[in-house]
């Protein structure tokens, strides 16, 4: 291993460790109801699903719009599995049905199962749709997401899914504990750990020979095929893995918002994630993460004032009324799509060198090199 590469790895490790230490410190110093935690948790969850979408759209060149459907599968699997048996048997959640899942599992099994169920359905759906080309694929995956949503709202499956009603009182972020103890697990740290491990796995995959095959397919299908890459098998692999992580992020989303309902996994959710991927840069993992945190911070925190009458100290209740935030937001998105179509990172990754060069460019005095 050459020196450059080792230095790079060490820096990366230090940076990641710093993030986790920072989160831990925040957990013990800030008020637990602080909006900072909302932003960090939701931002991390969106990072994972954005990265999983980027794996498909950015690295394999498959334009899929089914992410919301796979998140739904993950969220429901997790919620149904980890809801304590006593809750299932009571009238509190399954009010109109008798729950047929007569056991409950732990958080870890729930999360893995969430990913596996999403991956399994992705495998089945992938068999027919991955043979379709670009925009047909997009519309077919979008259609499947809608079908999944309808199935989960179906009365007949009520004993499993509680019909179209809310699921709650499962092991959400306020109910997780450190294994073998009753001490509550710091919730933001938990989200970061799960998301961190997942993204790490995706990065390892992308840097493996499979990842190179994915990129070859993205750049030129015909050439990739000629090089002996099995197109369908690799597309299916990418689709299944992406859905696995979308399922896990769906489960995390359910944990984060304490309740889950099929209704919320509409096409709009997929569009939102797609726009995050575009803002971050199609083909950049770190870009997707940065964009997710920015997007969530803007929409949940910094721009809230646009909806609530006062913004940056300006009081204008007639202008800053409900809905203004989203209007401003969509204008920003259009500007990015039209004028900065490569997004924040393009297809590059965040690195110390780029950061250093960026600083140098910004500070004219140190330009000489």
């Amino acid at each position, binding site marked *: 291993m050459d020196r450059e590469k080792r230095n790079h790895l060490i820096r990366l490790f230090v940076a990641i460790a710093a993030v986790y230490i920072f989160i831990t410190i925040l957990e013990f110093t800030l008020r637990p109801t602080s909006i900072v935690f909302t932003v960090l948790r939701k931002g991390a969850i969106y990072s994972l699903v954005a990265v999983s979408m980027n794996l498909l759209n950015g690295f394999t060149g498959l334009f899929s719009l089914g992410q919301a459907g796979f998140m739904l599968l993950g969220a429901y699997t997790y919620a149904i599995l980890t809801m304590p048996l006593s809750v299932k048997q009571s009238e509190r959640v399954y009010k109109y049905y008798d729950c047929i899942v007569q056991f409950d599992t732990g958080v870890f099994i729930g999360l893995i199962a969430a990913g596996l169920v999403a991956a399994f359905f992705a495998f089945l759906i992938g068999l027919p749709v991955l043979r379709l080309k670009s925009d047909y694929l997009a519309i077919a995956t979008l259609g499947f997401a809608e079908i999944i949503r309808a199935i989960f709202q179906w009365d007949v499956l009520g004993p499993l899914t509680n*019909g179209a009603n*809310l699921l*709650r009182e499962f092991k959400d972020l306020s109910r997780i504990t450190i294994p073998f103890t009753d001490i509550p697990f710091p919730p933001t740290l938990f989200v970061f750990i799960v998301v961190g491990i997942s993204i790490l796995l995706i990065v390892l995959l992308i840097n493996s020979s499979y990842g190179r095959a994915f990129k070859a397919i993205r750049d030129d299908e015909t050439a990739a095929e000629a090089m002996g890459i099995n197109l369908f098998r690799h597309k299916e692999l990418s689709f299944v893995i992406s859905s696995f992580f979308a399922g896990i992020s769906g489960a995390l989303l359910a944990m984060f918002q*304490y*309740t889950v*309902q099929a209704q919320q996994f509409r096409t709009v959710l997929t569009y939102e994630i797609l726009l995050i991927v575009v803002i971050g840069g199609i083909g950049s993992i770190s870009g997707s993460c940065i964009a997710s945190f920015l997007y969530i911070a803007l929409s*949940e925190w*910094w721009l809230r004032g646009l*909806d609530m009458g006062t913004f940056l100290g300006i009081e204008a209740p007639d202008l800053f009324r409900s809905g203004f935030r989203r209007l401003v937001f969509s204008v920003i998105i259009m500007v990015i799509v039209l004028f900065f179509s490569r997004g924040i990172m393009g297809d590059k990754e965040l690195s110390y060198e780029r950061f250093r060069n960026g600083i140098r460019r910004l500070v004219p005095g140190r330009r000489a090199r």
Partner: protein
Amino acid sequence: MRKTLLFLAVALIASAMVFAGGSSESDSTVVKIGVFEPASGDNGAGGKQETLGIQYANSLTPTVMIGDTEYSVELVIADNESSNDRAASAAATLVNAGASVVLGSYGSGVSIAGSDTFRVAGVPAIGITCTNPQVTEGNTHYFRICYLDPFQGTVLANYAYNELGARKVYCLAKLGDDYSGGLVNYFVEQFTALGGEVVSETFPDGNSDFTSYIANAKNGGCEVFFSPVSTEAAQLIINQADSQGLGMPILAGDTWDSNVILQAALGKDVDITVTTFYPEGADPEFDAAFKEWVNADSTRLANNGGDDTISAVTAMGYDAYYFALQAIQNAGSTDPADIMEALWTTEIDGVTGHIALEQVNGDAIRNTVYVKHANTTTGGWDALPAVVVD
């Protein structure tokens, strides 16, 4: 160059917002009451009217005595967009803004969805017109000042069976909506217990074509069309019931007590009966003063749906505000935990009647349901005899 500019812009906005967005720590003599209501989406119209009631009460009584100190009351309003997934983040906004107690919401689904955020933060919430039992069931932080669906559903079923003489009813609920789904469920329970027959269907989110459902009701030989859905869907149902010649009475719950319904039904061939919390005219003094307040400001008038009809939810919002003030006074502190404790024993005499809570779930003890009939020529409500259950 472009990229540098983009980076600069983002950095600038970000740094500016960190300061703007940071929750400003309030001075010590302010108590914040969170208003957790929809201002957009399916239930936006009703949510705005409920908020008006709270704002009106706040304009009359903007302070509260805690011990010997006079605190001014600040309303923090967050829009939950009638959507269960937005509810959690609206709730988080309120909690982060430092609300001592939260009022709301119109619509049961969003209340259930936001509930856990309040639970985790230890902030008590007072449901105003969310009638689904699940809102308060099995928790100690959610209270409620209105009656519940099992009660309302039973009253409605009895009304359909006895007063309207129906033996077969068509029930239409919105898929995944806790309010209409729950109410239809309790209605069906009671109606079949009485010996009646029901046809029950649901429509998906975003549906605007109700002609087939109306045809189903007609072809099924039903005698009453029971559809306690949001006002948004109600407008469409009324309109299409008129053009398709539904030919049977429409029965609905408290959501339909809104001037949106009156405006939609004006001049149409429809027969609409609703149950509600408060009939206009029950407290003339309140009515007159509120109307004056609404007419004084064009924004308020627009939020009330363009005229000065008093919706029951407005009166309920008004009562909820005073209920919260009383609880704060009883607690003698702005600490959410103390208020939560004090709420159990709080009682007031509101415009919608005496409000006291039972001690299991923290629901109001109510025994009266008011019944109204839409007058399609005058565009107002005709009061029918109220139903009192002992």
